[in-house]
């Protein structure tokens, strides 16, 4: 058995697994937060193989059992997210991509399939710093984000590798499913917090347009993208109020970045970073 430690702010999670699945674990789950460490954990998960199935065990209890290892990885990922939230009472997790430009964070919020991964990889290819395509850990006291970078999952979108550096290896699970270890992308500090410049709700479109959203419109739209918002109870109202008063939210309609020509790329980046898009 091998043990790795997943380091995040305030939490060290041990993951123990058989040697034979080392490649899968190292290439699929929060690789940029993994360290070689075999003790000193706050929590510990064990993955074991029993006959044809994999077991996910926490505190001597089996919490998942599945034939497919990547399903165990998904399950472990969501457990880790819960653990991170419990350990960080002053933070919430937004279902959003996060990219850093000139030391400020830009969030891209949207459901699966709206282009969070695409825009974050595209901007990284333009020199921005990748800080995650799925989660943003938002401090509700100062409204800054700390990177929480899971491995990029490409489903039926393998053409996105055009935006990746040449040294990025795809870890293919199947013909149309691959994981990218984010360590190959431009490095950012995973301990540092970044102030948020802007947040964008994403919609796919044939052209590019950006519109500032009103405060009530943001509140109408944002709740489904906050991970377990009701754990915040009565504080939720103050948090939402401060969120919409502190951060500038926009509705970004965008065509697939693979189809952007040079002029459109310049236009998009000017719109994203400009003061009055």
């Amino acid at each position, binding site marked *: 058995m091998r043990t790795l430690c997943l380091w995040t702010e305030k939490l060290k999670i041990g993951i123990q697994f058989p040697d034979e699945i080392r490649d899968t674990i190292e290439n699929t789950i929060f690789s940029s937060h993994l360290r070689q460490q075999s003790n000193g954990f706050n929590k510990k998960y064990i993955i074991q193989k029993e006959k044809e199935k994999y077991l996910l065990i926490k505190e001597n209890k089996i919490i998942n059992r599945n034939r497919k290892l990547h399903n165990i990885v998904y399950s472990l990922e969501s457990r880790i997210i819960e653990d991170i939230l419990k350990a960080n009472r002053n933070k919430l997790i937004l279902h959003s991509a996060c990219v850093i430009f000139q030391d400020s964070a830009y969030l891209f919020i949207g459901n699966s399939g709206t282009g969070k991964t695409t825009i974050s990889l595209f901007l990284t290819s333009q020199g921005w710093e990748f800080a995650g395509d799925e989660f943003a850990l938002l401090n509700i006291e100062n409204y800054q984000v700390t990177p929480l970078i899971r491995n990029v999952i490409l489903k039926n979108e393998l053409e996105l590798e055009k935006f990746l550096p040449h040294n990025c290896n795809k870890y293919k699970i199947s013909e149309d499913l691959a994981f990218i270890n984010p360590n190959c992308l431009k490095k950012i500090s995973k301990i540092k917090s970044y102030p948020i410049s802007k947040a964008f709700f994403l919609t796919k479109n044939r052209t590019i347009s950006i519109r500032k959203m*009103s*405060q*009530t*419109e943001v*509140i*109408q739209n944002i*709740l489904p993208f906050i991970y377990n918002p*009701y754990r915040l*109870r*009565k504080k*939720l*109202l*103050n948090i*939402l*109020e401060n969120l*919409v*008063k502190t951060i500038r939210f926009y509705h970004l309609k965008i065509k697939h970045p693979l189809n952007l020509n040079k002029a459109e790329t310049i236009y998009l980046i000017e719109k994203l970073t400009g003061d009055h898009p």
Partner: protein
Amino acid sequence: MKISANFRPKKKKVILEKELEDGMVLYDPESEKIYSLNNTAAYIWTLCDGEKTLHKIIDFIRKDFDEFEDAPEKLVASTLEHFLKEGLIENNK
């Protein structure tokens, strides 16, 4: 959930509210639901003091707003019916 002209809407005490630039946000800690109100709905909400009737609230809206998407009677009634259905207000009989 139809309401009558004598309906006197009163905010439930438990509901928390915050004013925004373009409206208001409400939180019901019992149902753990959040409600985002535009300017008109927020104004109607502020008038739910348990004293004013539906009829009176319509008068206020007519006086204070120039443009309406719906007739003021319909707008106020449907907003209050929504508040009532969601358990945000009660009738102060």
